[in-house]
């Protein structure tokens, strides 16, 4: 189950990188949240699972609530983004499965892949919605990655990560005043 959850989280991050429309971004953040919720479940943290599901659901609802309802999936000129999504996944997989040792390879893969892809999206995008979705994905990944700590993780990172993911897309998108 943890392998499927990790692949789901990477797929979600890849969709956030590749989509410009609100529906596409909603699918992406939903997959990221479900993936990390699954990983938290396999780590035995049902509280963390619940927080991530609620935070992810709030982000999805917020994205789907506002218009326009479009997918914007892989618009023309997305080749670089596609390469980023694939190469980011492969390098993360190599580090998680080959370079590092010990149990929890799926969580390592998902954490590194989602953080790397969200960084790429933050650097590349000019759209406020895409940047806020990437920040929400980053918050979920950071919360999930807290389980890598040797002492495990308590509820606080999950609660904070979920709150940030839920709140990020509620922020008023006040764009430039003409600078």
């Amino acid at each position: 189950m943890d392998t499927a959850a990790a692949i789901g989280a990477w797929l979600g991050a890849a969709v956030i990188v590749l989509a410009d429309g609100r529906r596409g971004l909603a699918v992406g953040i939903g997959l990221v949240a479900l993936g990390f919720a699954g990983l938290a479940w396999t780590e035995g943290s049902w509280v963390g699972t619940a927080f991530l599901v609620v935070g992810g659901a709030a982000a999805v609802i917020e994205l789907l609530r506002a218009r326009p309802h479009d997918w914007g999936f892989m618009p023309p000129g997305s080749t670089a983004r596609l390469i980023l999504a694939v190469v980011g996944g492969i390098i993360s997989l190599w580090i998680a499965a080959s370079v590092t040792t010990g149990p929890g390879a799926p969580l390592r893969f998902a954490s590194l892949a989602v953080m790397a892809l969200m960084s790429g999206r933050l650097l590349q995008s000019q759209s406020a919605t895409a940047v806020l979705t990437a920040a929400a994905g980053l918050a979920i990944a950071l919360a999930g990655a807290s389980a890598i700590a040797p002492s495990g993780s308590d509820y606080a990172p999950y609660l904070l990560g979920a709150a940030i993911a839920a709140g990020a897309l509620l922020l008023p998108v006040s764009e430039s005043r003409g600078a």
Partner: protein
Amino acid sequence: MEPELAVALPAAGALIGAALRPRPRVALIAGAALGVAGLAALVLAAPGLSSDQLGLRLSISAMSRALLLAGGGSLALVVAFAPARADRTALLTWGLAGLAGMAAIAAAPTLDLVILVTLGVALLHAALAGGRSLSARLRAPALAVALLGVGLVLARLEGPPVLARFAAVGLVAGLAAALGLLPYIHEFDPDEPTSASPIAWIAFLGPVIAVAVVMRARELIPTAAAAFGAMLVGLGLLNMLWGSLASWLTEKGTSAWHYSFMADWGLVLCAFGVQVADGQAAAVLVLYGILLSRLPLYLWSRQSLRERVQTDRPINLLAAALLAGSAPFAGFAARVLLLRGASQLYWPLALVIAAGLLLWLPPSLRLGRSLGLPRGRQAIGAGIAIAASVAMGLYPQPILTLAGL
């Protein structure tokens, strides 16, 4: 209970300040009262002792506490002696929100929570209406969070020793991006309100973030501590050089101030990288100088920068001497400590830093002139900032003791 109060009281002050915005006088009094109460909680907090009221072991280190108190002092100075046309309620509201974020970062028990709180602060800061687009405002701090996150994950993984070095790269790069230093200089709009501009990161939130990251990083990657220190020194030297030259040569006065903050941060990174007691003391004194002198003087100079007024009065010369770190100001004591620390570690490094310090002189004369001729409240504020810097320079021990050094 004190760490919880140090976060909650300024946060409540910011919320009340925002809610009472239509009645600025009441908002100012209520916000100031809660801010002072938050600082009192900080003063009462025993450094390093943890509190567990929320199921979370919160504690504030001595160094973080000292910087939080300096942040509170800086906010008080800026609001009390704000220019006549400045919106003091907005300054206090956003300052208190920043102070609450800084206290939360300082009190967080793990680096995970430090990074998540920083992301929360970045999102709230990006939501402020400014001259830049939201994506431009959020990009650098969110990238910082991602880099710090990757660094943290790599630090915790089991594997070859080189992983710890990569973790150090992630943490140093993340710190530079959070502060807005080379190579991640935040996009800067000279006409943007200060609370929404990158100055909030480099001059107000930055000191506490830097202390939180540097102190925890040393515990996380003890095997790569030397590499971590060397990267801090290298990045520090680069920012000293770039910041001071750009501050001297750039056309716009506001940008010159922005670059001067970068140059000061170069000193701080070198001081943290030196990793001996004198280096840590130098870092604390430079950070005090940023919070209590450079930031208030920058805010008071904005009016004259807009009106393109430059004066050559004694006050301008004093401000220039303060900004250049000459005796008897705090910057001088910091520089002496840094050179002593660097010479203990590796004397050619002290030589390079000493040569770099000369670069502060030309931009400081320019920045001093740009202060104009302060009048009324601003003149009193400038006098206090200069007097505080002299006091810190002549007798820095109380501050160093407060910071646990």
